[in-house]
């Protein structure tokens, strides 16, 4: 097992690849009562057309998420959530466009809980009855989510940006698409994506990395599996499929998102750098300390319901900036002007240094959160880098790289805007 020491942030990371292909990361945290384990598959809502060497298989929208719900059922009739909870753990799972992640947090019986986690995620058990019952439950969840303005404004933005990429469909699918799911669909997707070679186990806490490895070796299959290939469709253009969409819902003030596509993600150190540059560029341009945000805040065009992010998932990079404003159109005009300003005259040394320091501090704060640590480590595994390298790499990013990102990716013709307006009186 390799031990990497990150003295700058006071962390030690143990890394290993098991003979079955499972990639292991353990962040050692002496003094913490909480231990955290995330067992993740490189499989999400966008992995709908795939193959393992042979023929391409097409699956309906929502299988990855459906599978996540059903994995907690165990063949002997037990439910993994109950077993883990009875051990004092707090288990849960999430499915994004590019990842399915099962995790728990516990302050006791960590290795027992870990064994249970690995066992239940690698043991498929589905019946027609349990699938039918879940179709009802997830159908409810889908309807509830569709009600929320946050979700609507986000999905509308993805549909504006992407013409074909499966990321434009909701991860949970639709009531109709999940009706097509059968136990066979679930068994075959589990077999393809949930093998150790396509997965990672990332843990943090006051735990012994060797012991984690021993548990993983004992609980999982010994053989390697396939690393499936996904077809996300024909490459997308740099520009959005359409630029503007609006809808009306029961909201108190207009909700909006401005979006753009970042260049298709690379892998490895180049990918990490791309992430850091993009994130820093956005912080400088439209972070909460930027003249853009503070200016519009002072004008009353933006409030604290505001955020920005760069989401890298399933071979896409998506810039998302938004919140609540009485005049979303005016916000967009100011945003274009701010981006044009940076594109024209670049970034000042002081602005860059401040953003760099703020970003460093924010990343350091992120280390306090084991959930964030383990998910970042898992994203790093699937993206081909070590997440903790971001601290050292961040300090080598230049203002020119950030200005180039803004010039290239946030030009007026690259932007799309999604708005949810209040219902008419």
């Amino acid at each position, binding site marked *: 097992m390799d031990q990497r020491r990150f003295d700058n*942030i006071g962390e030690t990371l143990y890394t290993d690849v098991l003979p079955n292909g499972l990639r292991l990361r353990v962040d050692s945290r002496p003094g*913490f009562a909480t231990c955290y384990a995330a067992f993740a598959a490189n499989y999400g809502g966008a992995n709908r057309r795939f193959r393992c060497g042979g023929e391409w298989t097409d699956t309906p929208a929502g299988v990855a998420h459906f599978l996540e719900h059903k994995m907690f059922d165990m063949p002997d009739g037990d439910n993994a959530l109950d077993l883990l909870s*009875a051990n004092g753990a707090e288990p849960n799972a999430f499915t994004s466009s590019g990842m399915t992640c099962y995790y728990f947090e516990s302050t006791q019986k960590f290795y027992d809980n870990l064994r249970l986690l690995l066992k239940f995620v690698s043991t498929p058990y589905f019946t027609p009855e349990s699938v039918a019952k879940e179709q009802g439950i997830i159908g409810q969840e889908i309807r509830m989510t569709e009600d929320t*303005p946050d979700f609507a404004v986000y999905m509308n933005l993805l549909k504006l940006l992407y013409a074909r990429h499966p990321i434009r469909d909701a991860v949970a699918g639709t009531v109709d698409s999940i009706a097509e799911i059968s136990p066979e669909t679930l068994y075959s997707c589990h077999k393809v994506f949930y093998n150790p070679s396509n997965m990672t186990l990332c843990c943090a806490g006051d735990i012994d990395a060797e012991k984690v490895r021993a548990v993983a070796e004992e609980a999982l299959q010994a053989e390697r599996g396939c690393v499936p290939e996904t077809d996300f469709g024909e490459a997308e253009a740099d520009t959005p499929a359409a630029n503007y969409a609006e809808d009306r819902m029961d909201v108190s003030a207009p909700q909006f998102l401005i979006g753009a596509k970042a260049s298709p993600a690379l892998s490895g150190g180049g990918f990490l750098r791309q992430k850091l540059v993009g994130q820093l560029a956005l912080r400088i341009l439209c972070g*909460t*300390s930027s003249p853009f945000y503070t200016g519009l805040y002072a004008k*009353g065009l933006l409030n604290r319901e505001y955020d920005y992010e760069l989401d890298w998932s399933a071979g896409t990079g998506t810039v998302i900036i938004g919140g609540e404003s009485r005049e979303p159109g005016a916000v967009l005009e100011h945003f274009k002007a701010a981006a044009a300003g940076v594109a024209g005259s670049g970034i000042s040394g002081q602005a860059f240094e401040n953003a760099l320091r703020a970003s460093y*501090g924010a990343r350091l*704060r992120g280390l*306090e959160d084991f959930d964030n640590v383990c998910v970042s480590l898992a994203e790093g595994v699937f993206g081909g880098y070590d997440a903790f390298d971001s601290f050292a790499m961040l300090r080598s990013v230049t203002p020119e790289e950030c200005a180039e990102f803004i010039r290239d990716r946030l030009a007026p013709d690259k932007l799309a805007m999604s708005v949810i307006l209040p219902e008419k009186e």
Partner: protein
Amino acid sequence: MDIERKEIMPGVNLTALRTDKFKTGCLSLSLLTQLDRDTASMNALIPCVLRRGTALSPDMDALSRRLDGMYGTAVEPITRRIGEIHCTGFYASFPEGRFLPSGTEVMEETARLLAELLLAPNTRGGLFLPDYVDSERDKLIEAIRGRVNDRQGYALQRCIEEMCRYEAYSTLRWGDEKSAEAIRYQKLTKHYHTLLASSPIELFYCGGADAEDVTAVLREALSSLPRGEIDWDIGTDVRMNSVEASPRETVEEMGVSQGKLVMGFRLGECMAEPDMPAIRVFNALYGGGVTSKLFANVREKLSLCYYASSILEIHKGLMFVYSGIDPENYGAARDEILRQLDAVREGSFTDAELAAAKSCFASEVRAEADSQGELEGYWLSNALDGGEISPEELAALAEDVTAEQVSAVARSVECDEIYFLKPDGSAEDEDGSETV
């Protein structure tokens, strides 16, 4: 972790937790007042206005640049109600110097900035800037209106408003729209001076510095705090019994596709001398966790709802059960939630269920000690009711809770209000017959 608590200035208490466990340190400052409909909006607004600019850093732009330069130190306004005590102030989080490329410590600078925000706002003629007050007030009003966007939170607040209609607790932590609209800069400045002079102040620090050093830094930073007669007469009125013999039901409509059911309970006689570990274990067993009666029976077995959980407001002696349901399941879900409470009252639960509840609760409390934000809330809440028991000690006490103690708490609990937010035009089913 070493915990130290002392009064460092008249009416100013510091709780200092020394630990090397975290990458960041935190400092918080809370002004305490009695929760009151007339002042709640002003209290909530004050830190937001102060956060707009100080004499030295007059606007957000200047403040943000300064905070970025302090390696992304964050200082946020924070307003809470803990029982019927209104706590308003700032929460600051800053990186520990030993993890910064430059090795600079920013704790002292953060303490000075907190004091500057509190004591040296950007003013004109001694008054808050009308522009800052007006724009923050409008944002506060938007936030109050915006609570409908979170349907579950809205339903919970509506249940509280109905249930505690004659109690201060019905006041939202931001106050109401009407009182917020009435705020002007002169009035707010006057209220600010009253708060500074008379409110007890709670400070919290967690990080690598010694309590002594932190005390010295904070005393120096707050040296110009104008202290008058401190208003110690604040507290929470715990009403033991339901308002009426049987729970009141309130049904309202909104454009939602899933109904939101919230049931409000009084913890009752057990609040006379509250046995905190027993009450918390009871909650975990009844509806607090995924092994609870509500989760296992109402959601899993009977599929009556999408989720069902219970939460405690221990300072005020309340419990709420909240659930997302289809309107046609209204009557059945409500009855089942009450039936599960009866089961706990009668002791119909296994040793395994009790063990799972204890373990769930203990785990939750131990985990609080791993998060500075949680620790801050934990110790502030402790400071308000004079408790000095650490999360570790509380978790250990849960082990000794008996089945009979849990049932006794359940027997003391009374349902007082049932609130249902249902989809527009839908029919809720009471007992099998359609009602519109």
